[in-house]
Structures are given as structure tokens and as C-alpha cells.
């Protein structure tokens, strides 16, 4: 009888999962054992008169992390054992439960799925909730030993206070202007280039497109030093040109638009040409309407990433009045010179103001963002 139970267990998919957990647990326990051995060997050979810190520093990797390995090994082993027991019981009763019970179990599973999904959604939402709530508290309330989940009294003055502390109007204006011009540049130059690469016909077109693909490989995190030098020689540090121009064309945008322009059949373009459209006319009256969903999506993503960009604005704006909103909020803590703990209400107020436009935009345009994203993944 023992044998048939094992057989029945092995037919379920859970068996494989539990075996995997068991193997991982054993591997962790083995690593922990290696760590214990290494620890003992090293402790025996340790010279006299070392402080605890020095001893800890001189231990090898396995020796110093033996505790973690052993703990996780035991936890996983216990989980596997419990799982096998449950599986044995379940597979024993599997064929004996009635149809009604199965149905009820399935319903319970659905309820569990709802609860789990709701729980995780609440956890993900919590930081945003906490930011808003903290921005409405007094300094004293922030530092209570037992945090309050709802402010005792709404402190709306935190918002004007932080507005006074940092040039937030300036931040917003900078971000808006920068994002607008980046979008303008990426759209016009990007659509033109995408048209040239997708529908144009000139010598060396594909070789030149490799240049665009290559640009995808070179991140600004690598090349910021020479670009910064160039900007400083142009005298563009702390200026709109400096914020905008290095982001004016995006290889990603060109790539995406070229893909969708390629999908448009040439006969549409021929029809347009017969009606007397030039290149600009073809782009405006044929290609752009036909690829509107992609265009809208990519523009939204461009806008959001422009609004959120941090790396380059942080380099190029050394003065407060040239910061964008993301950089400004991140630097807000420094204005409180060591006193920021008591002032997190104001910092959070700044953060709330910074993310409101993006959250609103996301909620309104969610559908476009989602379709665009799954398209990007299909490529």
C-alpha cells in the first residue's frame, strides 16, 4: 500500500516542486556545513588579541554567512517536510472527495486569490498612502513611538511651507519646459528618421541604421564625463540647452517608430504620392494616423521618462534654480542640514506634489501605456 501512495504522490505536479525545495534545502544545509567547518578552522588559527570586529572581518565568505545558510536550509527543509505530509494526505483523499466538495474547494481558492491580490495591491499602495499621510502630519506626530495611520489633524500648511523652502515653482517650470522640448525634439526628429529608415531608399541605409541600434547600447551612465565637458565648454551647464539638447533624439523612439512604419503597406504611400503628397505630407496624413496608437504610447512614455529623469539633470544643474522636480525633491533633504527627521512632513509634501502629475497621467492613460509595453516586450 505504501508503494501506491508514493506513486499517487508522484503523479501530482506538487511532488516535483517539493522535491526541488528539498534539493535546495539540502544544498543550503551543505553550504552551511562548509561554513561551520571553515569557521572552526579559521577560529583555531586566529592570532591572539583581535577585537570582535577584526575577527568578523577576517572570516571567509562561507564562515561569516553560515548562519544565513543554515537558517534558510532548516526553514526550507521544514517546508518540504510539511509539504510532503500534506501532499500525502491530499493524494490519499483525492479520489474520495465528492464533486460538491471539489467545487467548494475551487471556490475557496478563488476567494484566496482575491484576498491575496488585494493584500499585495494594498502593500504596493502603502508607500504612496504613507507619503500622503506623512505630508499631513505635524513634526511631533511624525516622531511618535507608535505611528498614527491617520493624521490627528490635517496640516495643510506643510505644502506652502515647503513651497517657500525650495523654489518649487522654478522646479515645475524647468521640468515642464525641459520635458516639452525633449518631447518636441524626439517626436519631430524621431519620426523623420523613422520615416527615412523605414520607407526611404538611399545608399547605406541599413548600415546607418546600425548606428541607431548601436546608440541603444551606449548608456549615458558611461559617457556622461565627455558630454559634461562638452556642455561646460559650450557654457551650457545650468541652462535649458544643457538640460534639453543631450536628450533631443532617442534611439529607442526611432527604433519603435521604424518598426510600426514598416508595418504600413507601401501601397498607401503610393496612393498618397499620386494625390500629390510630399514626404512631410505622407508622414502627417498617411503614416502618423495609421500608427497613432504606437505614436501616442511612445510619446507618453517619453513624457514620463522626461519628467522623471534624474541622472542627467542632476549632473547638469548645480544651482538650485536649474533643478528639475525629481532632482529638487531628492535634494530637499539637504536643505534641512541634519534636521530632516523632524521635517519629513515637508519633504513628503514635496514628494506628493512631484508625483501628482504622473499619477494622474498614469491613471488617465493607463490603457495606452499597457498596450505599448506589451508591444515592446513582443519585439
Amino acid at each position, binding site marked *: 500500500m505504501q508503494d501506491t501512495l508514493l506513486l499517487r504522490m508522484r503523479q501530482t505536479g506538487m511532488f516535483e516542486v517539493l522535491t526541488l525545495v528539498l534539493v535546495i534545502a539540502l544544498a543550503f544545509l551543505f553550504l552551511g556545513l562548509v561554513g561551520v567547518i571553515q569557521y572552526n578552522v579559521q577560529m583555531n588559527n586566529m592570532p591572539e588579541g583581535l577585537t570582535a570586529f577584526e575577527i568578523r572581518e577576517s572570516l571567509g565568505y562561507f564562515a561569516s554567512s553560515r548562519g544565513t545558510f543554515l537558517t534558510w536550509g532548516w526553514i526550507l527543509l521544514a517546508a518540504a517536510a510539511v509539504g510532503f505530509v500534506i501532499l500525502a494526505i491530499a493524494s490519499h483523499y483525492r479520489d474520495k472527495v465528492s464533486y460538491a466538495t471539489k467545487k467548494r474547494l475551487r471556490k475557496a481558492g478563488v476567494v484566496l486569490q482575491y484576498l491575496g491580490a488585494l493584500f499585495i495591491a494594498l502593500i504596493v499602495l502603502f508607500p504612496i498612502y504613507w507619503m500622503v499621510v506623512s505630508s499631513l502630519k505635524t513634526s511631533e506626530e511624525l516622531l511618535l513611538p507608535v505611528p498614527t495611520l491617520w493624521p490627528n489633524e490635517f496640516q495643510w500648511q506643510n505644502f506652502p511651507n515647503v513651497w517657500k523652502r525650495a523654489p518649487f515653482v522654478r522646479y515645475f517650470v524647468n521640468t515642464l519646459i525641459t520635458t516639452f522640448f525633449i518631447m518636441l525634439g524626439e517626436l519631430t526628429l524621431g519620426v523623420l528618421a523613422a520615416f527615412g529608415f523605414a520607407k526611404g531608399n538611399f545608399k547605406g541605409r541599413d548600415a546607418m541604421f546600425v548606428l541607431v541600434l548601436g546608440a541603444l547600447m*551606449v548608456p549615458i551612465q558611461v*559617457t556622461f564625463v565627455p558630454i559634461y565637458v562638452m556642455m561646460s565648454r559650450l*557654457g551650457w551647464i545650468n541652462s535649458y540647452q544643457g538640460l534639453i*539638447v543631450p536628450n533631443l533624439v532617442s534611439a529607442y523612439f526611432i527604433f519603435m517608430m521604424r518598426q510600426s512604419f514598416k508595418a504600413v503597406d507601401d501601397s498607401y504611400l503610393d496612393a498618397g504620392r499620386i494625390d500629390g503628397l510630399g514626404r512631410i505630407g505622407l508622414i502627417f496624413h498617411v503614416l502618423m494616423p495609421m500608427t497613432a496608437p504606437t505614436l501616442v504610447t511612445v510619446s507618453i512614455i517619453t513624457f514620463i521618462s522626461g519628467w522623471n529623469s534624474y541622472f542627467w539633470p542632476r549632473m547638469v544643474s548645480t544651482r538650485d534654480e536649474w533643478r528639475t522636480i525629481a532632482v529638487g525633491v531628492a535634494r530637499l533633504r539637504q536643505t534641512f542640514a541634519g534636521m530632516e527627521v523632524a521635517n519629513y512632513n515637508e519633504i513628503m509634501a514635496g514628494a506628493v506634489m512631484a508625483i501628482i502629475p504622473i499619477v494622474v497621467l498614469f491613471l488617465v492613460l493607463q490603457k495606452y501605456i499597457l498596450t505599448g509595453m506589451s508591444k515592446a*516586450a513582443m519585439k
Partner: protein
Amino acid sequence: MRNQNHLAKPYPTKGARAASVVLFILSALFIAVGVYGWLMGDWNLESLRPISAQVYEARRIARSFEQPITGTVDLGWITVPLRFLSGIMNNAILIIIFGITFLVNAIMLRLQPWERMKDFFCVQPALIFFLLFVYYPVIDLVRISFTDMRMLVADPQEFIGLKNYEWLFFRTGWTRFSESLIITIRYTFWELFITLVGGLLLALLYNRMNKAFSAMRAVVFMPRYIAVATSAVVFIWILHGNYGILNYALSLFGIRGPKWLTQADTALMGILILTAWRVTGYAMMIYLSAMQGIPKDYYEAAAIDGADGVQRFRYITLPMLAPTTLFLFVTTFIASMKVFQSVDVMTGGGPGTATNVLVQWIYNLSFRDFRAARSAAVSVIFFIILLVCTAATMRWSNRSVSYDS
């Protein structure tokens, strides 16, 4: 009448020939001037000669972080275009790029008729941009890494050969570099783990198509579009050692939480908490949209064969998601090697060097320690690492499975 080519105008036409000759001459002029300026230092509008060592010295003394010293006579608004021109002249590379543009156009003019040239003009602005802001910086990065440049302004620089690389590989730089690389790899490993495993689990949990679930999906997905810098500020407050809500929540279970970001052994974990909050929703959406693409017949066939839920997942869903997993793996890998924003805002590479990821180190080298040349050397190595990793994953992905299109 089979060949009508003789009826068309011979190409290149006379006009195109003349134009291309003019362009050739212009390009030779520009490139010569530019290369001379690039090698000698830079052109300066006032003197129309390469900037001498004294001017460099004056600049260094003035320590102009923001503006190069140009005209000292204040002429009001007239100086605005003048300063612009002078700024352009200060960058020999701009002149060289103009020259290259003329040269390419001259060649293209001889190769093809005007109609096709118009197509070429469409892509030209973008190409010039990439030359200026992507390809030239790579070359200049290598050049800077061979000099002793300190600050990120026109500074007197001397060619010092491989000294920066020597520092990086055989002197004090090596400990910092290897440490930094290991931290980056640790971060990358955990981000990949969170993205792939967490995203897949969430996709299974949220795989139900109705209004309530799509609303919850939107909530889980939203963090990706909130600025990293701003959410990092929020998480600093949540992870605060004494007053943070996370440690309070842990204390309810009797766990004494660490001082997350100000403690060397948990700082990286603190940053990873923010990362998990940001990326899992995105991975979930990608996985979900791929799951929707799996044909239902497969599941029905498996159900007839008596496969239970876990087996259907193991033998149908998981293999069918392999291309998606690969996509997520490659993109997440490249993005997480470049992690900077969250680290910069949350810890600034600290405490000590506990979270000093590569980009943060490069940034600190050039903007805090004023060793631009050294940071350029590190950037070159970092770039090579990135390229090799990308190429390796691409090759590997080409060889690996994809079941159908």
C-alpha cells in the same frame, strides 16, 4: 526598347558634381581646422588661435565650474550670439562633425539622385545627434582616460599614457573597483531574482480578467512610472531606523528591525526593497501579456491527459514563457548594472562603501573627488563589461528556445 536607361539623365548630373566638389572642399577645411583644434586644445573666438597654456592656467585659477571664460567686455545682448558662437568654437568636435557631415553629403550626392537624397536628409539630424552625443563621447572618453584631467572643465591636461589603468588594475584602484563590481553584481543578482520570480508569482496571482483585477493590476504596476528619485525619498522615510513604519511593523512581530540604510550590512537590502516595489509590477504585466498569448488548446489537451494545475504550469506555461523570461532577463540585467538613481538618493554609495555600485563610484570619482580621468578609465572598463555581457546574453538568447513566434 528593353533598356531605357539611356533616356534618363546621366548621373551624377553637372549640378550634383559641382555641389559635391564644393562640399568636399568645405569638409576638408572643417576637418583640418577641427582636428588641429582638437589636438592643440581648443579654438577660441577672441584670438582665433588654439588656447594657450596661460589661458588654461587662468581658467584653472578662476575655477570656473559653470562657464568658460569668454569675452570680458560686456556688450549687453550682442554678446549672446557671440557667446553662443564662441561656445561652439570651443568645441573642436563640433567643427569636425560639421566637416564629416559635409563629406558624407558630398559622397552621397555623387552616388544617388536628388529624390533619394531627400530620404537621406530625413535621417541626417538624428545621425548627427548620435555622432555628437553617443559616438564622439565614447572616443573622447578613451582620450580622457589617457590624460590627467581632474575637473570636468577645460583644464590643462597632459597625456600620461596608461597610468590611470595602472592605478585601476595594479594600485589602490583595484580594491575599490573589485569591491564596487561585486556590489553591483550582488545588486544585479537580487534584482534579477526579484524581477523574474516575483513577477512570475504575481502574474499567476493576478491572472484573472475582470474589472476588480485590472484595477488591482494597475495599482501594482503604477510604481514603475513614479520617479525613482522621488520614491527613494519616500522609502528613506519608511526605512528610517527609529521612526520608520517598516521597523514599527516588524516590532509588532517582535523583530527589532535594523537601521536599514545607515547600516553597512542592510543598506543594499534597503535599496532592493525599493527595487522590488518598483519592478515586480512591470515584470508581472509583461508575463501576463505573454500568458494571454498562450493558446487555450494546449491547456485543454493537457487537462484531458490528466495534468493538474502545477503540471500544466510546469509543462506548458513555463516553457511558453521562455522568450519572455529571456527578454526580461536581458533588459533587467542591463538596467540593473547601471543602477544609480536609487543608490544616489538613498545612500550616496554609503555607509562607507557598502552600496558603492559602479556608476555611483564613477560619479563620485568625477564630481566629488575631481579625478575625471580616473573616472573615465573606470567608465571605459565598465562599458566593456556591459558590451561583453550584452553580447553574451544576445548570443545565448539566439541559441536558446523559442517555441513559436
